[in-house]
């Protein structure tokens, strides 16, 4: 009896050992973290060879730093979720990462890059068409209005910046303290703004064509836009809220009726806003030819780290194939508000009638696919853009505080940004 129990125990533990563990470090906290655990649970229940272990490692910059440190110490995770601004840094780290296209090909998993939403996949694909990282959670920038305030003032939701300023002046005159605020100033007002107006952020196709890229965000249109924001701040039409998503709360609390921020803010707005609201396309300058073009994504993708056993990569490929299934995607899309990554999942969600009930859910995809992406609106890839974005935001803040002219600030942003790019180029070349 004892022997039999022992044998059974040994057998059990042997089969437990046969299961390969796949480590996945991510930055999805709170409700999003639960979604991630659900995904892992479903994947683990669906097969026996691999066990996916998701680990929350803090916010995007923190998990990336943790993974870098772990890689240096020789125990990086298999899969790492990296936010979009870290793309160039990851891409340049040859030897530290394995391109997703290669992982899928080596594991002989069926994989068709064309099945993925072009604006999303394009962001993570090199010029030869190889998908480097696996798109996971993607959103875009949207414009939100508090419809109760608009109705009371008797104004229509503005479509252009000119209309927004005019509406803002009206609201201000009627005693509205805060009119317009924004989250993610660089992402909304430089990166998405450029794509939306089909002007380059940097040379070499916004850096996608090579590391020897330079910023071009001091163009007359950029200067005009930032100067307009500075002017709005001076007149009290624009209340600056901070560099990340601090603006969200100002809209949700009803303090500011106009707001630009991430599409992913919708979940929180739905939950706590005590007023009627609508999500729109981003405002644009109507005298710019071709505007509005299409917006670009924000969010994160999954990178496969190097130096693991081939059998591990098979598991990673299996997981990516699992993630690409339309049902899985539709579920993730409808429960989180992130866009579906495959065209099939988009189609499936549309047919399910979800968008009729939740019009805000489709607007992000419509904005991302408004027109066929150009070289200016496919995405961007700048080395060390975590630092670069911060430089842009510092200079913008100087304009909003009224301490610097828009032209001088953006000239400095370009100069300082290019220094970062050159330093990155020097490290990436070796």
């Amino acid at each position, binding site marked *: 009896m004892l022997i039999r129990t022992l044998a059974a125990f040994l057998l059990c533990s042997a089969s437990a050992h046969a299961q390969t563990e796949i480590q996945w470090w991510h930055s999805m906290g709170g409700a999003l973290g639960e979604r991630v655990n659900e995904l892992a649970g479903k994947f683990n229940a669906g097969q026996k060879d691999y066990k996916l272990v998701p680990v929350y490692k803090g916010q995007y910059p923190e998990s990336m730093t943790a993974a870098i440190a772990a890689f240096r110490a020789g125990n990086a995770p298999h899969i790492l979720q990296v936010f979009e601004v870290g793309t160039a*840094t990851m891409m*340049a780290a040859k030897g530290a990462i394995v391109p997703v296209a290669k992982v899928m090909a080596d594991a002989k998993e069926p994989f068709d890059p064309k099945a993925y939403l072009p604006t999303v996949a394009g962001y993570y694909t090199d010029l030869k068409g190889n998908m480097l990282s696996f798109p996971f959670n993607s959103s875009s920038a949207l414009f939100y209005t508090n419809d109760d305030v608009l109705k009371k003032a008797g104004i229509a939701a503005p479509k252009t910046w000119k209309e927004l300023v005019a509406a803002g002046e009206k609201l201000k005159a009627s005693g509205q303290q805060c009119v317009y605020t924004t989250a993610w100033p660089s992402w909304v007002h430089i990166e998405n703004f450029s794509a939306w107006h089909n002007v380059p952020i940097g040379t070499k196709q916004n850096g996608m064509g090579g590391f020897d890229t330079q910023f071009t965000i001091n163009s007359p249109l950029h200067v005009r836009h930032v100067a307009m924001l500075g002017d709005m701040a001076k007149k009290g039409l624009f209340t600056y809220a901070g560099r990340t998503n601090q603006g969200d709360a100002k809209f949700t609390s009803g303090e500011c009726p106009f707001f630009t921020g991430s599409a992913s803010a919708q979940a929180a707005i739905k939950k706590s806003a005590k007023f009627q609201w609508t999500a729109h396309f981003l405002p644009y300058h109507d005298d710019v030819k071709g505007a509005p073009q299409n917006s670009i994504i924000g969010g994160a993708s999954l990178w496969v780290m190097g130096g693991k056993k081939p059998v591990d990569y098979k598991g990673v490929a299996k997981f990516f194939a699992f993630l690409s299934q339309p049902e899985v995607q539709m579920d993730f899309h409808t429960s989180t508000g992130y866009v579906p990554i495959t065209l099939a999942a988009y189609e499936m969600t549309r047919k399910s009638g979800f968008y009729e009930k939740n019009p805000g859910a489709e607007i992000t995809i419509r904005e991302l696919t408004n027109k066929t992406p150009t070289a200016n609106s496919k995405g961007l890839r700048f080395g060390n853009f975590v630092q670069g974005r911060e430089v842009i935001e510092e200079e913008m803040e100087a304009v909003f505080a009224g301490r610097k002219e828009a032209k001088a600030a953006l000239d400095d942003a370009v100069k300082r940004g290019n*220094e970062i790019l050159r330093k990155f180029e020097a490290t990436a070349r070796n």
Partner: protein
Amino acid sequence: MEKRVVFRSAWLPYALLAPQIAVTIVFFFLPATQAAWYSFQLQDAFGLSTQFVGLQNFEALFASPQYLQSFRTTAIFSILVAGCGIAISLLLATMADRVLRGALAYKTLLIWPYAVAPAVAGVLWAFMFAPSIGIVTYFLRRFGVDWNWIIHGDQAMLLIVVASVWKQISYNFLFFLAGLQSIPRSLIEAAAIDGAGPARRFWTIVFPLLSPTTFFLLVVNIVYAFFDTFGVIDATTQGGPATDTQILVYKVYYDGVKAADLGGSSAQSVILMFIVIVLTALQFRFVEKKVQY
């Protein structure tokens, strides 16, 4: 005659010293040497490629107006934190020293903030002064003050100075109180009999006798402002708006950890190390001469 205690054993003193030396080597000398070594290198984030670049990292730093600005910010910040911190706690200590009834309660309450972690102190003040929802902001708005440290650099600086000073006052207070209590009553009483008022007594007797304490606190407070205030800044302004509250140590962290620029960050910490060495040496060399022990 001077009494000297001598170890007879040849190895015992070294053995007793060893733990302290080991800690210093592991946690100070090794990282410091590594920082010095990295400061001459250019590395990518993952450490896959490393090249020796000589003094390039340092040249780039001193050519950058932002870095030079960070020196000014640090100087203003440290002077404000050390100056206000010492002045306020000296005032409080003098007052507490005179209180007869309930002295223990006052003292205990004044010591409390020291038990608060810098990051928590930062969050606490950030909440009270939060633009648009903070309680203090609410009152300030009634008086027509446009309080928004997210965009106004001087207000952001004020916020981190207040939070840092508040945190440090308890520490200074303890030392001042001990200093005050060690001053012989007879000196003060004699002066009082000679007709010196409280202010005169303070400036001619108490303050000079407190000078060793004040000097010690000056060194400690400056080091505090240079390094320990990191938590306060990270929890509130994170160096912003623009770079108005980016003190040297915050920039070291930002460039090294967030921006993954190890070489530049290491070069900055080497410079920072020198500044603190020079500053402390200067203090002992010149300020200490005026101190009466």
